[in-house]
């Protein structure tokens, strides 16, 4: 009798969470999926099914095509820069640096700040100024340092708008990658390096043959985390630039918001959300399965 109760209680206690997640995550995703196949592109719900019509329209939409391209550019720049900066800073901080703690805390501080806050600040920093004002923000700083060739239109320039947003995101997340790598480096037994040094390996060889391969799981995890953040990016873009000139800073999450909540095209918005979810699932599900396998 007691045994039975002991088996039941844990299940009883986890059930509320399981049901809640079941409904609010999986149920709602299915609901959104259903909406994306309907005609509900007006204020009032209309659940007439029209198949893949919303998806067909979506991929034919110029703004969405620009968004996909922007997402690709943003993701590549953001993920690679964060990995490189993070690794570089972690390796440097691991060299018995004086006041390592101060550096580390400053590098990580942006992680504590809301995307909206950083969006507001970077909007002013990357404001290119005007003929009346002259250079302001970062451009003015470059001018003062004699680095005039670096001044540019930032997010007002359709060619590089999305890169300006990526820089703000790199500012926010590269410290995080540094922390991941630093934890990884600290986890490598010192004996391993010493042994290889005794075997005659120089510093570069130790990095190349011992340390980098051991950091590979961290790189893999960081790519998943950063990649899914960049696919979801929304707050930063809204606060910093909005869609930008000719949608040059636009991203799918913002397009979804505009379509759904400003344009009342609910079914069309739902289709954007589902595409976004599919892209993220491509990254996350293999990651979750591999974690699950390891532990099972």
């Amino acid at each position, binding site marked *: 009798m007691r045994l039975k109760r002991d088996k039941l209680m844990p299940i009883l*206690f986890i059930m509320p969470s399981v049901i809640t997640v079941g409904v609010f995550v999986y149920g709602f995703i299915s609901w959104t999926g259903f909406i994306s196949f309907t005609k509900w592109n007006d204020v009032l719900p209309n659940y007439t099914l029209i198949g893949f019509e919303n998806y067909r329209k979506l991929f034919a939409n110029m703004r969405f095509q620009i968004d996909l391209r922007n997402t690709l550019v943003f993701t590549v720049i953001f993920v690679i820069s964060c990995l490189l900066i993070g690794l570089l800073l972690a390796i440097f901080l691991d060299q018995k640096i004086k006041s390592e703690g101060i550096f580390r805390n*400053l590098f990580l501080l942006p992680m504590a700040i809301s995307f909206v806050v950083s*969006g507001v600040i970077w909007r002013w920093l990357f404001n290119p100024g005007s003929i009346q004002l002259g250079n*302001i923000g970062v451009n003015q700083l470059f001018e003062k340092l004699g680095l005039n060739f670096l001044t540019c239109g930032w997010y007002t320039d359709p060619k590089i708008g999305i890169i300006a947003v990526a820089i703000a995101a790199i500012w926010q997340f590269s410290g*995080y990658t540094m922390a991941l790598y630093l*934890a990884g480096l600290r986890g490598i037994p010192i004996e391993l390096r010493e042994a290889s040094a005794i075997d005659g390996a120089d510093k570069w060889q130790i990095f190349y043959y011992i340390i980098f391969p051991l950091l590979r799981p961290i790189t893999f995890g960081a790519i998943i985390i950063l990649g899914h953040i960049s696919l979801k990016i*929304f707050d930063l873009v809204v606060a910093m630039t909005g869609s930008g000139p000719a949608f040059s800073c636009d991203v799918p*999450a913002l397009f979804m918001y505009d379509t759904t909540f400003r344009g009342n095209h609910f079914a069309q918005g739902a289709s954007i*959300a589902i595409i976004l*979810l599919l892209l993220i699932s491509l990254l996350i599900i293999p990651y979750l399965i591999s974690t699950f396998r390891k532990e099972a």
Partner: protein
Amino acid sequence: MKIPTTRILIYLILVLFTVFYIIPMYIMILTGMKSFSEVGLSTMWNLPRSLNFESFRLAWLGSAKGGFRGLSGSFLNSLWLVIPATIISAIFGSLNGYVLTKWRFYGSDLIFTMILFGMFIPYQSIIIPLVLTLQKLHVYGTIPGLILVHVIYGIPISTLIFRNYYITVPTEMVEASKIDGANFLGIYRWIIFPLSTPGFAVAMIWQFTSIWNDFLFGLIVTPNPASQPITVALNNLAGSYIVQWNVQIAGALLTALPPILVYIFLGKFFLRGLMQGSLKG
């Protein structure tokens, strides 16, 4: 004594990156403290000649004459929202973590993975049904509604944090008390809960920061300015053409202040939450 050039180079690069990371903070603090007569955009980088907190006052209280709302009301909204949401989601996380580590059953790992997925989804993919449901429950547009949303979508991360923490609590302790006749609740009450302080610290600090910093849910669930959280109010303040830029920047600093204080004083726990969001076990 000769310092090798590589070491100088390392320090130089570290300092350079420090500049990159603190420039926005520098501008925030600097601009906030300038008087209106010297806040011109073209003198953005200059140090203030005297201390003046007028920008903060306007960002906090707003200005009837200028026609914009201050952030004070939404600062309090965020506080009333974050405190209950943080506590409730930590309680859920603790119980889930306890079950998933000390009372594993057939399928419990699968359940954990399924819960975890909820942490990664783009919330756009649930937001339309969410709004419809909140309207049905008559909590759409209210702070309780927003609390509910944060508790629900906080379940995955708080479960993960507690699960990773309880894994470090020796299972032998639990097994021994089972033999001694302690039951599910008794073990939680007398063994697990008293050991949980670090877990609660990490989970609550993580949830505090991420709920305070949330924008999407606040934007969509509370369109009414009277119940908006501070991030949404800041975005409105900064998106308005009638608000001077120094007031916007002061508002940004006010919005960032609570998480920054948490980071400064409880950074150790914040960092632990950060690492657990990515590295399992």
